[in-house]
Structure formats: structure tokens, C-alpha cells
């Protein structure tokens, strides 16, 4: 969610029971603008909070002029002091899939891969590093996975210019109530995967300036999103069932939308059994 709209957005997302305490909210109000100044971001998003066993990580993302470029991520333990996270690498992502269980809450905690998965440990040892994974790396990988899998925006909110860069659409006035209830009106805000697999007939109907991302319709497994109209239809809330805790809100016919993650940072692998 946009840093400026955090107070209003938290009210809309509170249906799931998770939120921020007044202290953290106030701290965010002061530290996010400072982040924007120091790192020269054009936009700062409050991404959410990952609950560890002993502490919580608060995550913020900074965007540059091209909104679709890889975002810089920062984390904090108290919403006041922020540290920049390095971008995620493929090895980090692969190793993070092996590590299961809750986050500990301490960024320097080390997961011993030998206990978890002997093969992964062996492969890491071969590459000349120690078979441990730091919690910070796991954090980076988890945030990247969540963003890729379930970070969503409404259709039409972003436009792609002919030069390839992506901007907010100033003429976006919000989805109508009918559109807001459909999964096809929401896109994953990452590099599209399914777009090129569409038939020519489907592609002919797309508008290249707004339909350049994957929609949620073809997410596997089907039914991994819960759409609800809260407050009698004034807010549309989408909750992901794959990453429990990710909540997306949008007020139809207005420009307000955003997503936030309040959860434990674990993928819900039991989803097919639970539906």
C-alpha cells in the first residue's frame, strides 16, 4: 500500500484482524517519507509484516520511475530504522523453498541445511560455501516469492508506455462493482508468464497498454483467491489462500487500492486439501 495512504488502507484491511499498533503506525508515518528522501524513491510502499517467533519484520518497498522494474526492499524490526535488502538470487530462492517452519525473528539466525535437506546441503558444500542459510536471505527470498505469486493490482491501474516503462494510469477511476467481483480484473504485478501462451484470438482483444500482465483467472489451484465485499460493498477485499495473510483491498469507482501482507511468511502447501 502507498505510504501516504497507510492509515486509511489499514482500516480497510483490518477485516482479517491483523494490523499495526498505533505506535508502529506513527513510526511509519515518519520513517517512510524519510526513506523516500534518502533513497530517492519515487514511491514507497508499505509491504507488510512477517511475524517471527520472537519478533516481527516490517517490510517496505521503494519504486523508481519505472514501476515494473525490480523494487528495492527494506526491512525494519521497529518501523524506525530501516536496512536495505539485497536483491533475490536464484540460489536464495531455491534454498528458501527447502527451509520450512516459522521465521525466528532474528535476522542473523542461521538455518542448518544439513538438518533440513541433506542433498541441498551437499550441493551447497560443493559450491564452496557453508551449508547454512541466514534468516535474512530467507526473508529476501520469501518476499520475492510472495510478490511474484500474489502481488496484485487492478486492471487499468498501470499503463505501459511504448518505450516499455510502466507508470500509474492517471485516468484510472477504479473498477466498477461488477468488474470488481471478477478475478479477471486483477493482474499479478510481476513479469507475465502466461501472456504469451494466449491464442491470437484472445490477444486481439487485449489492449497492449493496460493488458500487459497476467490476470488472476488462471491461477493454479483454482479457487486460491477469496473475494469478499466488505462493508456492504464499499470495499472489495481479496485474500490469498496460497500465502495466508496477503490481503488486497480496492474501493470500487475510486483510485484507492493496495495490498499488504500480515502473516507468518509460510506458503500454504495444504491448499488443495483445504478447498
Amino acid at each position: 500500500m502507498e505510504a501516504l495512504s497507510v492509515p486509511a488502507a489499514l482500516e480497510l484491511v483490518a477485516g482479517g484482524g491483523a494490523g499495526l499498533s498505533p505506535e508502529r503506525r506513527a513510526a511509519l508515518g515518519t520513517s517512510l517519507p524519510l526513506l523516500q528522501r534518502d533513497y530517492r524513491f519515487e514511491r514507497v510502499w508499505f509491504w507488510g509484516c512477517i511475524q517471527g517467533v520472537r519478533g516481527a519484520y516490517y517490510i517496505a518497498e521503494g519504486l523508481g520511475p519505472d514501476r515494473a522494474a525490480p523494487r528495492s526492499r527494506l526491512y525494519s524490526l521497529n518501523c524506525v530504522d530501516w536496512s536495505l535488502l539485497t536483491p533475490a538470487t536464484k540460489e536464495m530462492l531455491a534454498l528458501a523453498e527447502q527451509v520450512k517452519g516459522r521465521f525466528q525473528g532474528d535476522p542473523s539466525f542461521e538455518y542448518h541445511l544439513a538438518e533440513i535437506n541433506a542433498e541441498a546441503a551437499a550441493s551447497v558444500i560443493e559450491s564452496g560455501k557453508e551449508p547454512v542459510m541466514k534468516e535474512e536471505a530467507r526473508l529476501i527470498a520469501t518476499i520475492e516469492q510472495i510478490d511474484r505469486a500474489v502481488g496484485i493490482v487492478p486492471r487499468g491501474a498501470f499503463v505501459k508506455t511504448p518505450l516499455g516503462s510502466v507508470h500509474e494510469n492517471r485516468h484510472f477511476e477504479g473498477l466498477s462493482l461488477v468488474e470488481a467481483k471478477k478475478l479477471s480484473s486483477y493482474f499479478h504485478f510481476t513479469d507475465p508468464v502466461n501472456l504469451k501462451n494466449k491464442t491470437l484470438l484472445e490477444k486481439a482483444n487485449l489492449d497492449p497498454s493496460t493488458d500487459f500482465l497476467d490476470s488472476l483467472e488462471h491461477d493454479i489451484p483454482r479457487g486460491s483467491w477469496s473475494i469478499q465485499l466488505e462493508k456492504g460493498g464499499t470495499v472489495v477485499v481479496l485474500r490469498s489462500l496460497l500465502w495466508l495473510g496477503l490481503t488486497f483491498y480496492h474501493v470500487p469507482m475510486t483510485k484507492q487500492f493496495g495490498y499488504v501482507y500480515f502473516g507468518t511468511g509460510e506458503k500454504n502447501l495444504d491448499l488443495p486439501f483445504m478447498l
Partner: protein
Amino acid sequence: MDRPPELDPSQEPEGADLQDAYERGHGPYQPHEPGYGLDQPGYNPYEDEIPDPQARMLAVKNAKAYLLKTSTKSGLNLYDHFANILTKILDEQPTNTVDIIENISKDVKWAQFRKKMDTLRDEPLIPPTFEAAEKCKALFVKQGGEEEHEGVEEEMGRPALPNVMEVAFYFEQAGIGLNKDESYYIFLALKNLIDVQPIQTCRFWGKILGLEMNYIIAEVQLREGEEEEETGEEGEGTTAEEEKETGEDGEEDEEKEAGPPKSTYKPPPPIPKEPNGTGTNKYVYFVCNEPGKPWVKLPPVTPTQIVCARKIKKFFTGWLDAPIVSFPPFPGNEANYLRAQIARISAGTHVSPTGFYQFADEEEEEEEGADTYEENPDFEPPPVAEMVESLATWAHHVKGILKQGRCVWINPVQKSEENEEDDEEEEEEEGEEQQEERGPPLLTLISEDEGMKDIPAWTTQASTNLIPEYSVAILQSNRWPGAYAFASGGKFENIYFGWGHKYSPESYTPELPPPAEAEFPGGPEITETVDPTVEEEMAFKIAQEEALAEAEEEEEEEEEGEDD
């Protein structure tokens, strides 16, 4: 006319404007046309007037007919268009008309296409927003009968309605809870519930999220004597049926051998549910999807439902009558599953500061069945720092659920003996005595809760480190993510916001189907053997005859021996 006459596609009747015909420059000239110039003395190509009145009338008529022609593209005609423009101009009398004449013409054309009054009009869409707002508004209307309310409050020492906003405030210090509007709606909805139902104590238990709708849950204790007695009758009905079935089985086995063999399998007797007011059914739960919608009472929970709920993991859809499709098949629909999960969550995560509750009598403390507790009047709340530091300052005040699915263990074999006296001999199966299960006693400290792998069962934190004198101690459960408790001064409360599932470090594995049933035990009577061949039969017959002959000889010898 704007269009040059050369491009005019319509056919010009012969008597049309002579000027146009001349400008078009076609030949050969007709006698009446000016180019001919013979029978029109003094005719000038630039002269507008047509001297012959008949021809002029015809020319005017033709001109008008031309103007009235409908355009093939838009269905308008120039005559009407001009009439409208002039009407509009004369009505509105704008300044500098000649400069804006093209715009006026365009506007008039636009106006043509706007439907004036369609006989079919769209019904104004009533978005569901307004309906929901209506329902919420109903919450704010104060119910009649204010005098009754005052009377009720005087009778009872404590008000039944909890202070939801105060609890919400404390939880908000930890970042937990719904937004204030929703909390207030829930507050009002609880007030309505208390007005409608005979309730002694009431508490906002929490919110469980579902796929299509969510559940708001209130934990309630009904006033004594008001509970329904239907459930008692149901229980008796089922046991009577069981008796009849076993009696019939015994008789049929003996009499009918022609029919297919009846199964002698008797399913284990169902474990009876705990009576209302004790154990897992201590509280009654009411749910609604949204504040403003009517409250629905959840049925009491049975041990089989709890046992099955432990084995499955399903999302709630939000509809209480939705079926639960699972293996092992859940005995009930979503309302029962919801009730079972609520019972499990309450038993696992409802805590209070140690010492807040004490046992009524000291003797009961030693009994296993201690179910009642009361508030300790001498309770002194420990400081918040201590509540955060040590888990020994918190204790469970709800009995844990045993493996059987009840809080108090019951021996199912014993109960069935009382009912079925005929089959005592069959029931005494020595090898299947079930061991009495013992759970932790009632007010155990939560420091004794086991963690999972290396994750402790509970996480404590203070709501703020910057202002320790006003911070609140917050407890989060790791076994049931979404269960929270706070304590500050003498106040404490439990709440649940989540999806209603237990946390397990390993992935969920569904129960495997039971092994295939064993076949009828084999024996020599039914084992197939190869039929004897003819030679074998003959040999057998000869052997038998020889044996007979030998036996006769022996008898004869014995008889002869005896005669002697």
C-alpha cells in the same frame, strides 16, 4: 448549400434551379435552359429570378423536395435540420451567431441522437451497498422496552454485555483487531443478541474468515433453565434403536440360515456428547456473517465431531449449511465443523493470568472432574513486565480436550453394558479395555504447553517498548495462529482472528483409507481341493473293503475265542 453542385449525387429533376444546372456545365442544353439562350430574352446566368411563375413554383417545390431528402447515412434531412437550427437560434438568441453557426449545427445534430424519453427505462441498480447500510442502520435504532432493560440490570450484578470497545482498544495496542467501525457494529449486534436471547454472560469470541463470507462468533452462557431439552430426547432415541438392532440380530442368526449371513460387526458404541453446561459444551455459541444479520445458534458439539475435525483441514465457506466433503467423512455440515473448531481453539488457547481464577473448593482441586472455578477476590495482578517475561503467569481456564473428544473421559464399554443386558457375554472382550485418559487438570500454567519442534507454544511481547509504564502484555499462540490474549492491570481477554486452523510444522497428510476387510477365515471345509480321479476312488474303495473284511475276520475270531 455547402456541397458543390458537381458532387451532388442526387439526380436533378429537369425543372430544378437553372443556376445550378448552368454551373454544372452539362450539355447539350435544353431549350428552357439558359445556355440555349434562345427563348429567354434578357436572361442573365446570374439572375436568380425565374420569370415564369409556374416554373418558379415548380422550382421551389423541387428545391424543397431536395431539402427534405433524407440522408442515407444519418437519417436526417436538411430541411428539418435547418428548421431546428433556426428554432434554436431564435429561442436562445446567442451573440455573434454567425461565428458559432457551425457549432450550433453540430449541437443540434447531437441532440437528435439523444433519446428523449424511452418507454423502457433501466431500473436504477440498487447496489448491495445500500442494503447492507440499511441493515447496519437497523442496529442503531434503539429497541423498545427500555423499562424492562433497567429492571433486568438491577437484578443481575454484572451487565451481560461486554465492553467490546474497551477490549478492542487493548488489542489495538498490539496491532490486533478489526477497525473501530466494525467493532462498534459488533458491539451493537451483541446488544441485540442479549435483548433477544435469555443470556447470562456474553463475550465476543472472535472472527473466523471464510471463502465467501466470514463468521463473527459470540460466546454465551444461557440463563439456567432456558436451555432446550430436545437434545436429551435425541440421545435416548438413538440408544433405544441400538437395542432393537442388536436384539434382532441375535434372533435372526439363529433362525434364518437360508438368507445371506448377517454381518456380526457391531460398530463401537458412539461416545456420548457432554451435557450442556459442562466440558466442551460449557458455552453456547452464536454466529452471524456480518453485524446486522441475524444470529444463529450453533448446535452442541459431539466427541466424534471433534475427533474427525482433528483429522481434516478445510476452509470455511461462510455458509452454515454447506457440506464438508472430506475423508474421513465429517459427521455434519459446516455449522458442526465450525463448532468443533471453536471448541478446539477455546480449549487450546483460552488463558487468564494465574491466580485470577481459583477452584471453588479445595477438595475439588484434586478431583479429575474439576470443572468449576470462580474468580479469586484476592487476585493481585503481576506487573506487565513479569507477565511478558514468564509464561508461568498465565494459566488455562478451559479444560483440554482428550483424545476421545471429550473433556471428561467416559468408558464406552461400560455404558453399553448398562443398556444391553442380553449380550453381556459377547460384550466382555478382555483385550479391548480402553485406558482411562487423563488430561492436564483445569488451571495448568501455560509454561507446561509443549512446543512444536523448536517453536514454543506461545509468544509473549509487550505492546510497546518505548512507554513501558502503559504497555500491555500480549500473548500470541503459535499452535493456533490467530489466537491472542492480553493482560493489563487486572483486565484480560482472549480473542481469535484467523482462518480457524491449527498450525502444524509438517504438511497436512490426509488419513489413509482403512485396509481392505479380511475375508472369511479359511478352513478345510471350504478350501478347494482337487477332485479325486477315478483310479484314486477305486483304490480308496478297495482299501475300504479290505479294511471291512479284516474287521469281520477279527470279530469272528473274537467270537470264536469267546465261545471257547
